[in-house]
C-alpha cells in the first residue's frame, strides 16, 4: 500500500468534527455520529477469505482455453466473506440520500415516489427472465406490453408513432434530431445546418444539436421568461433544421405563445422539437403533437416514476407525428392482422435511421412505466399533473418573501427562486443555502440552473408529497433564510450533519483520480 493511500485512508477514518447549534446559535463541539467513511473492499481483503457456498470451477477448467489467451496472473480481486461484502454495501447505502428516505425537490428531475407495484411488475419472471434474443413467438407478452406502451405514449403526446429504444432523455433528444435530419435529407433539403435553442434550455439541447452535426444558435428569453418571439423569427432562416423548445420551460412556465412560435418555425420550413423533460406538468392537459410539435422525447424515469439518478437506468422514448415515422429507429413493435406481435424486420422500413441501442432499450424501465400508466389511467395521470402543479404553486407562495421569485404568478410543476438579495445583504450564496438545507434534513433543490437566473434555486416538489412534507420543507427554507441574516457562519460551514462536508469539486474535475491504485505488485492479494 502506498504512503499516499495510507494517508488518504487515515484522513478518511478521522472522525469528522461536527458542530452543534446551541440555543443562542452558538457553535459548540459535539461528537461525530461515527466514522463516516470506510475502507474499500480491496483494503479489507484478507488472503484466503471467501464464502465457500459458491461453487468453484473444477481444477481443469482452464485446460480448454489456449494458453496464449489465459492471463499470466490471476486478477487482483479482493477476498472477503459474504457478510463482509453485504455489510460494506449496506453501510454505504446508509450514507446515501434517496427519495425512499426523504423529500427530494430537485428541479427538472421529477424525483417523485416510485410506486412499489412497479417493482413487482418488473420482477415478474416472464419479463425479468426473458432473453433479449428470444424469438418473437416466445416474447409475445413483452412485445404486447411494448406495443401498448408505444400506443399510450403516442396518445399522451398527441403524436402518431413512438420508438422505445433510447436509453435516457439526452439519448432521446439525439434520436429525435437525427430523425429530423433524415427527414430533411430525404426531401433533398440539404442546406439546413442550424438548430435554434433558447438560452433557458437544458444543456443537453445544444449538446444534442452538436452531436447530430448541427450548429447551435442560442436565442434570448423574453422578460416574462418565455421564448422571445421576435428573436426567434430573426434567427429562423432557410438554414434552420429545427427549433428545440422545452414546454413548460426550465423556469416552470408554460409557453403562452406556443401556437405563434410553432407557426413561425414551420413557416421557415423547420421542424419543432419538444424536450419532454417537464411532461409531469401537463399530462392530460396539453398534447405537444396536437399543438404542432413534430417530435418529442419522454423521460419515462421522471414522468412515469422509475428510479433514476443513481438509482437506475432511464428510458427516453421518442414520439413523432406521421411525417417523421418513416425515419424512427428500427425495429418498432408491430401487431399482425392475426393479433400476434413481432419486431420489424431488417429493411422493412428503409428510411429508418437504424438502431440507436442494442436490443429493445431498457426493458425493465418500460415495464415500470407501463405499470404506472395503467395504475393511474387517463384521469389519474391528469390528476398527477394537476397535483404536481398545485404542490409547486403552494411552495412558491410559501417561500416568496423569504426568497425572491423572479417570475411571479402561477407556475407549472416547478419554480425558480433566487437568493440574490440574500447574497447582497449577507454574502450568503445559493450554494450555502443548499448546503444548509442538508442539515435541516432535506435534499437541496437544483441550484444555478437555469443559467439565466442569478443565484437561483429550481424547486420541483412533485405530486407525491403530502401537505405536511411541503410545509416542513417550506419551513426549512424560510428558517435557512433567517439563519443567513442572523448567523451567516452556520451557512458557510454547512453541512455539518452529512457524512462528508464540502467536497473539492474543482480538484475532482481538474485532476480526477478514477482508479484506485492500492492493489498492485506485492500487495496484490491473488488467489493462487
Amino acid at each position, binding site marked *: 500500500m502506498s504512503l499516499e493511500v495510507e494517508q488518504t485512508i487515515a484522513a478518511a477514518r478521522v472522525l469528522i468534527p461536527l458542530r452543534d447549534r446551541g440555543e443562542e446559535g452558538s457553535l459548540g463541539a459535539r461528537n461525530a455520529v461515527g466514522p463516516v467513511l470506510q475502507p474499500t473492499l480491496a483494503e479489507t481483503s484478507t488472503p484466503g477469505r471467501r464464502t465457500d457456498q459458491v461453487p468453484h470451477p473444477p481444477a481443469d477448467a482452464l485446460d480448454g482455453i489456449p494458453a496464449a489467451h489465459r492471463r499470466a496472473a490471476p486478477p487482483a480481486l479482493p477476498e472477503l466473506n459474504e457478510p463482509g461484502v453485504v455489510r460494506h454495501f449496506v453501510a454505504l447505502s446508509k450514507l446515501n440520500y434517496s427519495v425512499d428516505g426523504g423529500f427530494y425537490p430537485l428541479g427538472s428531475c421529477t424525483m417523485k415516489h416510485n410506486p412499489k407495484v412497479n417493482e413487482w411488475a418488473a420482477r415478474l419472471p416472464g419479463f425479468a427472465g426473458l432473453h433479449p434474443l428470444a424469438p418473437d413467438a416466445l416474447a409475445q407478452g413483452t412485445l404486447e406490453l411494448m406495443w401498448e406502451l408505444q400506443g399510450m405514449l403516442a396518445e399522451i403526446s398527441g403524436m402518431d408513432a413512438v420508438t422505445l429504444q433510447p436509453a435516457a432523455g439526452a439519448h432521446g433528444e439525439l434520436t429525435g434530431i437525427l430523425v429530423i435530419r433524415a427527414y430533411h435529407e430525404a426531401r433533398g433539403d440539404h442546406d439546413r445546418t442550424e438548430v435554434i435553442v433558447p438560452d433557458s434550455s437544458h444543456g443537453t439541447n445544444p449538446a444534442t444539436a452538436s452531436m447530430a452535426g448541427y450548429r447551435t444558435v442560442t436565442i434570448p428569453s423574453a422578460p416574462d421568461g418565455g421564448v422571445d418571439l421576435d428573436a426567434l423569427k430573426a434567427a429562423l432562416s432557410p438554414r434552420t433544421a429545427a427549433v428545440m423548445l422545452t414546454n413548460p420551460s426550465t423556469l416552470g412556465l408554460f409557453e403562452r405563445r406556443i401556437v405563434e412560435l410553432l407557426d413561425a418555425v414551420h413557416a421557415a420550413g423547420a421542424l419543432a422539437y419538444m424536450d419532454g423533460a417537464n411532461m409531469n406538468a401537463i399530462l392530460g392537459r396539453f398534447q405537444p403533437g396536437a399543438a404542432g410539435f413534430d417530435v418529442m422525447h419522454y423521460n419515462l424515469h421522471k414522468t412515469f416514476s422509475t428510479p433514476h439518478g443513481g438509482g437506475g437506468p432511464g428510458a427516453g422514448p421518442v414520439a413523432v407525428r406521421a411525417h417523421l415515422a418513416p425515419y424512427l429507429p428500427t425495429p418498432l413493435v408491430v401487431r399482425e392482422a392475426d393479433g400476434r406481435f413481432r419486431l420489424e424486420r431488417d429493411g422493412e422500413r428503409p428510411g429508418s435511421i437504424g438502431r440507436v441501442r442494442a436490443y429493445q432499450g431498457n426493458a425493465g424501465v418500460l415495464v415500470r412505466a407501463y405499470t404506472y400508466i395503467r395504475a393511474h389511467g387517463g384521469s389519474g395521470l391528469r390528476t398527477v399533473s394537476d397535483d404536481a402543479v398545485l404542490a409547486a404553486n403552494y411552495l412558491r407562495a410559501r417561500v416568496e418573501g423569504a426568497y425572491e421569485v423572479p417570475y411571479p404568478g402561477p407556475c407549472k410543476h416547478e419554480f425558480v427562486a433566487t437568493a440574490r438579495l440574500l447574497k447582497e445583504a449577507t454574502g450568503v450564496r445559493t450554494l450555502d443555502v443548499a448546503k444548509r438545507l442538508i442539515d435541516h434534513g432535506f435534499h437541496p433543490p437544483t441550484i*444555478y440552473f437555469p443559467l439565466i437566473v442569478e443565484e437561483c434555486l429550481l424547486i420541483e416538489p412533485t405530486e407525491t408529497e403530502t401537505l405536511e412534507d411541503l410545509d416542513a420543507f417550506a419551513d426549512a427554507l424560510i428558517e435557512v433564510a433567517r439563519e443567513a441574516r442572523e448567523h451567516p457562519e452556520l451557512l458557510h460551514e454547512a453541512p455539518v450533519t452529512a457524512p462528508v462536508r464540502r467536497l473539492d*469539486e*474543482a480538484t475532482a*474535475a481538474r485532476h480526477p483520480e478514477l482508479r484506485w491504485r492500492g492493489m498492485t505488485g506485492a500487495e496484490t492479494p491473488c488467489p493462487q
Partner: protein
Amino acid sequence: MEIPEGLRYTQDHEWVRADGTELVIGITAYAADELGDIVFVELPRPGRKLAAHEVFGVIESVKTASDLFTPVAGEVVAVNPDLTGAPELVNGEPYAGGWMIRIRPDDAAAADALLDAAAYRAVIGG
C-alpha cells in the same frame, strides 16, 4: 475587481494585450470570478485562422461551460500550454499565467477599436 490599464477589452469579457506585432488574449478577472473554479480550457491549434467574434475555444468551470470569442481576426500563433494541466491559472492570474492564445492580427490596428479599461469597467457595472 482588477482591470489593468493598457489592455483592451470586449463585451464578452476577453482582454487583449499588444506584444510587438502580436496580440495575447485571455479572459478578465471578472469573467473568471463569475465562472467560478475553472476546470478545463479547450484551445485552438496554432495556425488556425479566426474571424472576429468566432468561437476560438470553450471554458468549463464547476458551474457551467462557456464559449470563448475572438476579439479581432487573425491567425493563432501559440496557445498557453500550461492551461492543460493547470486550468486554475485562469482564476489565479487571469492577466498573466492564465493567458489563452497569441494571434497575429489581420489588421494591426483592429484592437484599437476595442474597449479601454474605463469603458470595460462601465460594462461590468464596476
